[in-house]
């Protein structure tokens, strides 16, 4: 079976300006969504506070849950539906009391209202302000450091322009993925950072394979213009790209639908990130490599 017939030549390079416009729109939409949501919806890992994941034997109305907690004085309590029926996330802000101390009164209040044994606290996560700040800094550092490291690797392994192309593609992918998370108001926590770094790794993976082919073809045919080499390289690796992304997406869909609510945000981030990452290695990274060439030629022709 073959998805892409040999000898297929789609003019990817020729479409790069439409692609640029499309990417621009996506990035602007992501930034706008972020602005509209007032920044990423930080989970307790980054903002500090307490989150409780509770399950009710008989699914209650969210208003009843809210009512039960009205008497617990911990400031701004938010209650959120969490995937399966009867499961809720209760989020408590940072308070003066010791980390984690807030969870017991909440559990007690719920048990008092709905009856003992009717409410099960599945998970409690509580992060103090110092740890939250620490984790946030580390997360940002991790994403930035990995982007830079991969850029450097590609620079050393190939050429500087490939490194820059990959870095631009990565920033593109991460921005759009974060925007997509904000759009559906997924919580931004450590697991999501892990997902983002995976997206970074996968996207570079794609970019490397195309770059590899470009380099190989450049050695083979020195006469051809870079644009046509880039184009044929993308075409030659296209069936691999589609296949690999396709199988990865199959697996992620399995994670998304069957992995349980805890892993939902993670799988969603991977899904968006992998699709965008595949697109960007074709329509963003390679055109950037090309832009360097035309830029260089433009300068030399002026001289």
């Amino acid at each position, binding site marked *: 079976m073959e998805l892409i017939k040999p000898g297929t030549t789609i003019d990817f390079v020729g479409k790069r300006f439409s692609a640029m416009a499309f990417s621009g729109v996506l990035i602007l939409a992501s930034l706008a969504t972020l602005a509209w949501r007032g920044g990423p919806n930080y989970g307790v890992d980054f903002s500090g506070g307490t989150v409780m994941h509770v399950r009710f034997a008989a699914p209650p109305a969210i208003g009843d849950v809210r009512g039960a907690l009205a008497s617990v004085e911990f400031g701004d309590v938010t209650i959120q539906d969490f995937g399966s029926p009867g499961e809720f996330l209760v989020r408590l802000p940072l308070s003066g009391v010791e980390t*984690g101390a807030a969870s017991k009164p909440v559990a007690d209040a719920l048990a008092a209202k709905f009856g003992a044994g009717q409410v099960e606290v599945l998970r409690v996560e509580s992060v103090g302000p110092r740890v939250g700040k620490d984790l946030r800094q580390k997360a940002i*550092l991790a994403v930035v450091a990995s982007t830079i490291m991969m850029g450097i690797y590609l620079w050393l392994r190939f050429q500087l322009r490939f490194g820059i192309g990959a870095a631009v593609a990565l920033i593109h992918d991460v921005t759009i993925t974060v925007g997509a998370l904000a759009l559906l108001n997924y919580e931004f926590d450590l697991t999501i950072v892990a997902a983002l770094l995976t997206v970074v790794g996968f996207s570079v993976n794609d970019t490397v394979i195309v770059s590899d*082919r470009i380099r190989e073809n450049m050695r083979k045919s020195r006469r051809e213009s870079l644009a046509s080499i880039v184009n044929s390289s993308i075409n030659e690796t296209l069936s691999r790209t589609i296949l690999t992304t396709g*199988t*990865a*997406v199959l*697996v992620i869909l399995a994670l998304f639908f*069957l992995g349980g609510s805890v892993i939902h945000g993670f799988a969603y981030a991977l899904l968006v990130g992998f699709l965008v990452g595949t697109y960007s290695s074709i329509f963003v990274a390679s055109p950037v490599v090309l832009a360097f060439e035309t830029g260089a030629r433009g300068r030399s022709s002026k001289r």
Partner: protein
Amino acid sequence: MRMGLVAALMVLAAVLLVPTYFGGKPEGWPDFLPGPIRLGLDLQGGTHLVYTVDVDKAISNHLERAAEDLKNEAKSEQIGLSSVTTQGGMVTAQLSDPAKRDALEKVISERFPNLSLVTEGDSSAVRTKMTPASIREIRDGALDQSLEIIRNRVDQFGVAEPIVQRQGAQDILVQLPGIQDPERAKALIGKTAALEFKLVAKDGDSANPGLITVAGRELDRATGRVTRTEYKLEPRTLMGGDIISNARPRPATQLDAPYVEVDLNARGAKIFEDVTGANVGRRLAIMLDGVVQSAPVIQERIGGGRARITGSFDFKEARDLALVLRTGALPAPVHAAEERTVGPSLGKDSIRQGIISFVVGGALVVVFMIVYYKVAGVLADFALVLNVLFLLAVLAALGATLTLPGIAGMVLTLGMAVDANVLINERMREEMRLGKTARAVIEAGYERALPAILDSNVTTFLSGIILFQFGSGPVKGFAVTLCIGLVTTVFTAVVATRVVYDYLLSQRRLQNVSV
């Protein structure tokens, strides 16, 4: 030879996974082999706690003690001091007679190596502060000692395979797998357990300004109600928790409520005998963490090095109090900075859902590869299965912890492991179109695909290493699985499948590559 290597590794991996399959080391299993794959707290349930040691409090405690010692030393040297105060990290001694200044400074420099003199104008006061070296020592000491004490408490609490370790400059990480009662664990671990004995003021004395007021806790046994009272106490601490050598809980009898019986060490026994002997008829307040637990009347001189701490406890509280007294007091208070508890039922759900998505995702990929690549697809699937086997075996061998994101990492490895074989297969198709022989197609396919495979895996490996470096807990678990998975992927996809092709070629069975 390569075939032998692959076969040997397969056997080794299968052996390493035996304990995981049986859920424990089987009877007669050699000790040097690793046990089953460890499950993270998110999969088996449990509590993850990070405590911050309040080192500033430890330092100010030391300062208080230094002030007390200074007062005593000055008295024995007959240097009159009108007051000794601690404030702003400094001990200030106010001299009654400014002429004695040199004598006091001499005492400080000779007998207080921890203190350094602060030169300042006021001639009637001597100011000193802690030296930076001793502050560092106190910080490190407080952290190490807290670690040791928390470890002892956790051990006595009886949790299987707890983790207690230092984290960063002032934190202590505690992981309690599978714990049922996190509230009690927290109460025990975080209790400072500073025990103090002070005399209650005499009846006529209660207006004396030198007395301190301390809250107390009293239980009415008949009604079970706890009431709060206040005590006027003499400020001096007669004895501390360091006089205790052992402590055990005693159940309630008809006469007594549950109480804690303590054995005193030799020094403690002597002090206790002296104090009780000198104060018969007075009340002795027993304070724990600044709260008076009880204030019994001293009936007689108590010798023999055994005492009892009575108070408003039930038996469970008496047991926990005995536990913290046995393990000693924390040198400084600790505060919970991070706390994550996963109930056991969520852990079970997570494992079940993780395995289901793993199996379903894997099955989809396996079927798709066979449909798309025929025989080469079967080979790729063989590599996939081998990959999972190796990945699990390495996890077990390293004693690494499998977490929920770790399972996600495995699912992801599965998706990406396909990539290496796809690259090889696509190359082989290209070579076949050029009309090469089967041997040439295979050789060129592997050789041409290798650089791309290595490059792509190295870059992902880099991101894995960064994740491991910066991540904490579950994210680290993800990074570990990802990195191991990448190594096993390259091996199984490039070496293991090639072995099969080589075998087929050597048997001259392969006329055409089926890809």
